[in-house]
C-alpha cells in the first residue's frame, strides 16, 4: 500500500474522531443542561423523564434516513456532516442525560442541607457540589458512549440509504470503499489503524479521566485495594472546610445499583403511557412535515393508510414475530458468553487488570466494520442467512449485556463476596445464589439497553445493503421492511415502521422490563 493510502486512512480517522468528539461534547453539555434541573426539581423531573424515555426508545438507525433527508434539505453541503453528528449525538445522549440526572439525585441529602444552611450561591453549588458529583458518572459513560458513537458513525458511513449518496469522509466510508473494491490489505490496515487509535484514545484520555474522576465518587463499600470511603469523600470535605463550616459526620447509605431509579417513581403515573404515545406521534408528524414540506394532514393520513394497506396485516404481524425471535436469540447468545466471562473477571483481580483494557478496546471496535465479513460468510448462503442475521444483532447488543453484568458483579458489596469465601460455596452456588441476583437490577437495565440496541440493528441485520450488494433474510422482519422502504425513498413507509418499532419498544419497556426491574430492585433490598 502506498503512502497516499496511509494518508487517506489517517485523514479518514481524524475526521471520524473529530466528528465523534464534537458529538460527545455536545452530548455532555446538553446532558448537564437537562440532567441537572431534572435532578434538582421534581416538576422538571416529571416532564423531562418521560420525554427522554420515549426518545431513547426510537430506533435511531431507522431514524437516520429521515434525519439525512432533513439535514440535507436544511443545508445540502453540510447536511451529511450534520446528520452524522446528529446520529452520534442521539446514540450517546440519553444514557448521558440519565446519568447526570441520577448523579444529581444521588447527592447525599446531608450535603444539600449543609449547602442550604450556609447559603451557598447557585453558581457555587453548581461548581463545588453538583457538577463534581455528576463527573464520575459522565466519565464512566464515556467508554460505552465512544463504542456506541463509533458504531453509529461507521454504520452511517458504511450503509447506503436509498438513492441519496451520503458522502462523508471517515473510517466507515473508507472501509466500505476497500470492501467494494476488494482491497484486502487496505481493509486490514484500516481496521488495525482504527483499533490502535481506539487503544490510544483510551490509554491517553479516557482511562486517566476515569482515574481522576474517581476521587469524586461517593462510596461506602470498601473493597480490597480500593481507597476507602473516607478517602473518596475527601474532596467534598475539603470543599466544605474551605467554606468554613463544621462538618457533621456524613453517613451515606449503601445503595444498590441506582441505575434507572426513575423507573419506580414513574411507574406510578398511569397517564404516562398515553403521554408517550402522544409524544412519539407528534415527533414523527413534525419530522415528516418538516422533511417533505407537506402541510396538509389528510394527505399524510391517506398515505399512511395506503402503506399499511399495501403491506397487509399478516406481513406486519409475521415481521414483528420474526424480529422478536431474532432479537431473543441474539440476547441469549450474548448472555451465554457474558455470564461466565464477567464472573471470571469479577472474581479475579489480576484478570481485571489485564483483560479489562483489552476488552475495552475490542468492545469499542465498531461492529459495522465486521458486517461485510459476516455478510460474506453467512448471508450469501441462503441456509445460513438467519444465523448471520442473528450474529449481526449480537454484534450490536453483546457489549451492553456484558458490561451491565460485569458492572453488577463488581458492585456487589465486598462483605457479600466474602461470604462465599467464608462458607466455601461452590462456584455455581456463588454465581446463582449471590452474583446473579445481586446483579439483577443492573442486568435488567442492560437488557433494556440491549434490546433497544437490537431493534436498532435490525435495519442492518435483516437486510444489509453494501453498495450494490444486498444480503437479506428470506423470512420477513421489521428491519427488512424498513430497509426496503428506505431504498424506495418512501418517507411514509419509514415513518410507519419506525413508529411501530417505537411503540413496541416503549410498550415492552413499560409492561415487561419495568415490572421486572422493580421486582429485581425489590429483591436486592434487605
Amino acid at each position, binding site marked *: 500500500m502506498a503512502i497516499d493510502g496511509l494518508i487517506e486512512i489517517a485523514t479518514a480517522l481524524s475526521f471520524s474522531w473529530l466528528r465523534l468528539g464534537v458529538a460527545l461534547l455536545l452530548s455532555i453539555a446538553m446532558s448537564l443542561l437537562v440532567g441537572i434541573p431534572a435532578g434538582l426539581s421534581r416538576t422538571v423531573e416529571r416532564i423531562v423523564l418521560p420525554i427522554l424515555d420515549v426518545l431513547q426508545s426510537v430506533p435511531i438507525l431507522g431514524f437516520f434516513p429521515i434525519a439525512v433527508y432533513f439535514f440535507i434539505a436544511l443545508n445540502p453541503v453540510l447536511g451529511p456532516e450534520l446528520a452524522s453528528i446528529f446520529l452520534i449525538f442521539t446514540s450517546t445522549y440519553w444514557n448521558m442525560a440519565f446519568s447526570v440526572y441520577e448523579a444529581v439525585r444521588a447527592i447525599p441529602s446531608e450535603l444539600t442541607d449543609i449547602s442550604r444552611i450556609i447559603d451557598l450561591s447557585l453558581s457555587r453549588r453548581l461548581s463545588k457540589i453538583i457538577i463534581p458529583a455528576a463527573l464520575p458518572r459522565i466519565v464512566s459513560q464515556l467508554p460505552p458512549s465512544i463504542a456506541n458513537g463509533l458504531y453509529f458513525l461507521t454504520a452511517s458511513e458504511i450503509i447506503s440509504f436509498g438513492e441519496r449518496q451520503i458522502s462523508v469522509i471517515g473510517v466507515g466510508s473508507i472501509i466500505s470503499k476497500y470492501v467494494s473494491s476488494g482491497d484486502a490489505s487496505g481493509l486490514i490496515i484500516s481496521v488495525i489503524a482504527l483499533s490502535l487509535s481506539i487503544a490510544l484514545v483510551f490509554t491517553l484520555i479516557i482511562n486517566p479521566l476515569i482515574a481522576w474522576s474517581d476521587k469524586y465518587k461517593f462510596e461506602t463499600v470498601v473493597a480490597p485495594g480500593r481507597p476507602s470511603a473516607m*478517602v473518596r469523600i475527601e474532596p467534598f470535605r475539603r470543599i466544605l472546610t474551605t467554606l468554613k463550616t463544621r462538618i457533621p459526620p456524613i453517613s451515606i447509605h449503601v445503595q444498590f445499583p441506582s441505575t434507572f431509579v426513575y423507573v419506580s417513581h414513574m411507574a406510578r403515573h398511569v397517564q404516562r403511557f398515553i403521554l408517550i404515545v402522544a409524544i412519539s406521534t407528534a415527533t414523527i408528524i413534525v419530522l415528516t412535515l418538516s422533511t417533505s414540506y407537506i402541510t396538509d394532514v389528510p394527505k399524510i393520513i391517506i398515505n399512511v393508510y395506503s402503506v399499511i394497506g399495501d403491506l397487509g396485516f399478516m406481513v406486519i404481524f409475521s415481521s414483528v414475530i420474526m424480529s422478536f425471535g431474532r432479537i431473543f436469540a441474539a440476547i441469549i447468545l450474548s448472555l451465554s458468553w457474558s455470564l461466565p466471562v464477567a464472573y471470571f473477571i469479577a472474581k479475579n483481580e489480576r484478570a481485571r487488570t489485564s483483560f479489562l483494557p483489552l476488552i475495552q478496546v475490542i468492545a469499542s471496535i465498531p461492529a459495522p466494520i465486521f458486517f461485510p465479513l459476516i455478510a460474506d460468510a453467512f448471508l450469501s448462503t441462503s441456509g445460513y442467512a438467519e444465523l448471520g442475521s442473528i450474529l449481526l444483532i449480537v454484534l450490536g447488543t453483546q457489549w451492553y449485556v456484558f458490561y451491565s453484568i460485569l458492572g453488577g458483579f463488581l458492585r456487589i458489596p465486598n462483605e457479600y463476596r466474602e461470604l462465599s469465601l467464608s*462458607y466455601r460455596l461452590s462456584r455455581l452456588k456463588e454465581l446463582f*445464589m449471590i452474583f446473579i*441476583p445481586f446483579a439483577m437490577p443492573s442486568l435488567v437495565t442492560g437488557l433494556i439497553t440491549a434490546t433497544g440496541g437490537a431493534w436498532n440493528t435490525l435495519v442492518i441485520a435483516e437486510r444489509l445493503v453494501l453498495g450494490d450488494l444486498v444480503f437479506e433474510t428470506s423470512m420477513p422482519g421489521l428491519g427488512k421492511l424498513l430497509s426496503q422502504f428506505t431504498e424506495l425513498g418512501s418517507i411514509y413507509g419509514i415513518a410507519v415502521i419506525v413508529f411501530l418499532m417505537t411503540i413496541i419498544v416503549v410498550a415492552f419497556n413499560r409492561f415487561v422490563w419495568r415490572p421486572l426491574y422493580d421486582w429485581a430492585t425489590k*429483591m436486592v433490598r*434487605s
Partner: protein
Amino acid sequence: MSNKEPILSLIDVKFEHKLRSGRTLPIFNNINLSVHYTEFLGIVGPSGCGKTTLLRIMAGLVRPTSGRVIFRGEELTEPNPRISLMYQNPTLIPWLSIWDNVYLAISSRKEMSEIEKREKTSLFIDLVGLSGYESAYPAELSGGMKQRVALARALVTSPDLLLLDEPFSNLDPLTAINLIREVENMWLDASLPPASIVMVSHSIEEVVQLADRVLVLKGRPAEIIAELRVELERPRNRKSDEFYRYVDEIFTLVS
C-alpha cells in the same frame, strides 16, 4: 493441645493499604497479640483506627503485608470454617429466607449429613430467639432481628473462634442492651460454641460488659497502647461503681 497455648496469635503483623495514587497507607506497623482458649477478648479503638481490618486479618480474609497469623498452631492463609466473622452490618442475603440465610453457612459442609444440617439450622435460629421467623425475609425484620440472624449464621458453623465487628453499633440502645445480654448468656453457657470470642468496638461500655481482657488500639499506624483485665463477676452490672471505674480507666487511655 494445652489450653495455655493461644488459639490465635498475630506475630509482627504489618498491614498497609495500597492507594490508587501508588502511595501506601500504613494501618499497622507491628501488632503482636494472642487470643487464648475460653477467652473473651475485647479490642477498643476510635473509628477508623483499623479495627475492622484487624478482624479481617484474623479471619484470614486478608493477608497481612508482613507478619504471621497462627490459628491453632498453624499458619492461617485463607478463611477457615472454624473461624466465624460477624460483620458490623448484618450482611444477610435479601432473596433468601431467614432459614436459608443461616443454612447457607453450612450448606457446603461435606462432613455433616443433610438432617444434621437442618437440625443445626433450626437449633440456632431458635437460640437467637427467632423461631417462627424461619420463612420471613430479611427486609421484613427489624435491625435487631437481622443482627440476631447474622449471629445465628455465625454460630451455626460451630466455630472455635467467633469474631465480632461492632455487632451492636447499628442498633438502638435498648435493642443493643438486650442483645448484649443474650450474647453474655450464650457465652456463659459452656455447652455452646465458640471457645473464644474477639469483639472490636468503639463503645467502651460494650467491651467492659463482655470482655475478660481488653486491648486498646490507637494511632496511625495503630498500636496496642494498653492491655487490662476486667475482673468483674458475670453477669455484670452496668450500674455498679467498679463497672464505671473500668469504663473511666479505658476512656482515659483511648482519649
